[in-house]
């Protein structure tokens, strides 16, 4: 099979190091992309198990399988793993690393060695984060937000967890830096910014957020660590500090962080939809510019997480206004995706199915986000499971389903083999059903007053928690169907052609899996990356 071709794929290449070292010491962006994929899949599995543990605890009112303090630890760890180790590196580190150079006609990223170092930093940070669970002080119980002043006082291992977040942030910064330089310097001759496919555009916008927002939370976490170590009072009101200031600094990063995850997700969807409709993307420039607009405006809406914190009235309406403005470019993208489908010849395969589910879930997540962005309803549902449902619709329903979409879309390119198409569709459908069963009831009981982060609840919420548990179990079945199918495909699937979906972007012009140096000769750059003639 592969002997017949005269190229050496990146999977078979034998460099200076052999075996596993050929992977973990590799600077090949494609190998690093797969390393990220495996690491993040593992973290996701751990985080998902913790999530399921919470659902089991909530199966009945009162103590079911754990005590309140254990529950506090579980939701904190679930949040830290899922946010800092899964969704923030997720799409950009996995698909960005693998496909950014391929899509812009480059042979690697700008700084391959830095890229390798970044993966190691991510692993180091992850080890720290996981270690914080097993220390004598007990797992941190602050929630992933580390809100002061509680985080300055609690006896649990907050310092290790915040150090982990700092280190993981550093990895995120370096990924962003690498991508920005790559896009500026390594585009193939003839490819201008407006000839780039839209996934690189989305990565470019997200990279700027990674670069500019992460340092702010970094220094905030260091201040928190020093506050704990030396009794400094930056955020502790007893010492003159201001806990609301911590919230400001935290959300100055953590709101834009939502766009670090969702922009590349939108980028993936923007690649999948034209390919499976065989139609030129509708409004190329509008989508490209809206990515930058989301990144820019997204920097100034952080206060919508703080309406009930005691922030001034003027700040509340200001942040509310800007939150509504930032919804506009997101909506533009949704309209463009749907317009692209109009009169397209649709090929209903798993990547496209996931993309459709993404749009559906993202619309629910986005519109409930507007409910939360308006001050009056926010005060009503703040810190209830309404919020939990909202951000799971965005992060999991949005970013997660886009990840699955991208995974099924690019799988044949990454592994050179194809998975079972029918099983993939079933996996998508089961995941979709499980997801909605799990999270939609939380909107309802959140609206009725079910607080988030409680291990106990009133009996009147029992019905919803039961549905959610069932949804969670179905979700897990969906995972096993999806992952089982993909693993089987990677091992025994049929050999995939170079361009199984009839895509037009550059990654489909090279063999599957791509050769070590991607392009043997300079790729031909079309002025329109989505030319389906």
């Amino acid at each position, binding site marked *: 099979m592969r002997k017949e071709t005269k190229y050496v794929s990146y999977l078979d290449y034998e460099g200076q190091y052999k075996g596993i070292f050929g992977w973990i010491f590799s600077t090949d962006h494609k190998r690093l992309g797969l390393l990220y994929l495996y690491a993040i899949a593992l973290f996701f599995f751990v985080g998902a198990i913790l999530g399921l543990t919470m659902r089991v605890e909530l199966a009945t009112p009162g103590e079911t399988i754990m005590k309140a303090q254990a529950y506090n630890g579980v939701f904190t760890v679930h949040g830290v793993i899922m946010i800092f180790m899964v969704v923030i590196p997720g799409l950009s580190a996995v698909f960005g690393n693998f496909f950014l150079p391929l899509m812009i006609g480059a042979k690697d990223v700008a700084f391959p060695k830095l890229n390798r170092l970044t993966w190691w930093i991510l692993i180091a940070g992850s080890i720290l984060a996981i270690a914080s669970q097993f220390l004598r002080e007990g797992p941190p119980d602050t929630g992933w937000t580390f809100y002061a002043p509680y985080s300055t006082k609690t006896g649990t291992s907050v310092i290790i967890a915040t150090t982990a977040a700092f280190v993981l942030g550093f990895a995120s910064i370096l990924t962003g830096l690498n991508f920005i330089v790559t896009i500026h310097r390594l585009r193939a001759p003839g490819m201008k910014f407006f000839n780039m496919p839209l996934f690189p555009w989305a990565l470019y916008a997200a990279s700027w957020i990674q*670069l500019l927002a992460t340092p702010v939370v970094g220094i905030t976490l260091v201040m928190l660590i020093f506050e704990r170590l030396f009794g400094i009072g930056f955020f502790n009101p007893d010492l003159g500090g201001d806990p609301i200031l911590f919230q400001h600094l935290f959300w100055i990063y953590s709101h834009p962080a939502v766009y670090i995850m969702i922009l590349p997700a939108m980028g993936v969807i923007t690649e999948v939809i034209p390919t499976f409709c065989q139609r030129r993307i509708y409004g190329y420039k509008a989508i490209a510019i809206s990515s930058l607009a989301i990144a820019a405006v997204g920097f100034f809406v952080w206060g919508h997480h703080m309406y009930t914190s005691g922030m001034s009235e003027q700040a509340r309406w200001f942040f509310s206004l800007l939150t509504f403005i930032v919804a506009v470019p997101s909506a533009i993208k949704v309209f463009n995706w749907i317009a692209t489908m109009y009169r397209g010849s649709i090929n209903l395969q798993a990547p496209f199915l996931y993309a459709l589910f993404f749009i559906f879930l993202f619309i629910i997540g986005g519109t409930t986000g507007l409910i939360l962005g308006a001050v009056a309803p926010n005060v009503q549902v703040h810190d209830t499971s309404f919020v939990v449902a909202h951000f799971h619709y965005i992060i999991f329903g949005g970013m997660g389903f886009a990840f699955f979409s991208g995974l099924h879309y690019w799988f044949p390119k990454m592994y050179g083999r194809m998975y079972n198409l029918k099983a993939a569709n079933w996996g998508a459908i089961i995941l979709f059903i499980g997801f909605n069963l799990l999270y939609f009831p939380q909107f309802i009981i959140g609206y009725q007053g079910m607080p988030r982060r409680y291990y106990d609840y009133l009996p009147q919420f029992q019905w919803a928690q039961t549905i959610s548990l069932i949804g969670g179990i179905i979700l897990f079945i969906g995972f096993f169907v999806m992952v089982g199918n993909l693993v089987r495909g990677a091992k025994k699937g049929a050999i995939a052609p170079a361009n199984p979906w009839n895509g037009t972007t550059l990654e489909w012009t090279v063999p599957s899996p791509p050769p070590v140096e991607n392009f043997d000769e300079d790729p031909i750059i079309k002025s329109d990356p989505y030319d389906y003639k």
Partner: protein
Amino acid sequence: MSQHENHAFEHRDDEAKKLGMWLFIFTELLLFGGLFLVYSIFRSQYPDSFHEGSLELSVTIGAINTIILLVSSASVAVALTAIQKNNTKLSMQMLLLTVFLAAAFLVNKYFEWGAKFHHGLYPGSELMQLLDRGHHLYFSLYFFMTGLHALHIIIGMILLLISYFKVKAGKVKMDDFMHLENAALYWHLVDLIWIFLFPLMYLIS
């Protein structure tokens, strides 16, 4: 890994390295930016304490350190110009001078901090806990910001020393000086931050 190094595409891209350094400088600016934000908030809340706090610092030591950093910034710029003009010797001398000035800055800082420590004023001390809130915050910020800045001085010194040895070994030379240029950029950043730290900590009263 070496798998690319044998291949033709591994060409040198100085512009990419420079852009990468600038982007890293952006992250440093926002790292300190977060602290300047905290400073400005607390200063607006406790103007009198910040005023009194700044009177406790010696303007003379601060001014001397400002001059030291300005000269070192100029000397590293001269080192870069020298290497571009193929004057390796001058470049090495200037790099050494810069590192020496950086060390002088740290010695100064050591005595400045030492005096504070001597009076029982340091993070975590009993005196710090007894201060009123504004003073407590002022000195917390003072130690935190100048401490972080001093850490950057040390990192900068290491980078400059590496550059020095690269110039000495002939690896940094007239037509390949990106390492020196980036180390110099980093050093200017350290100077740039001090330019704002100095008036905010020592002067404004």
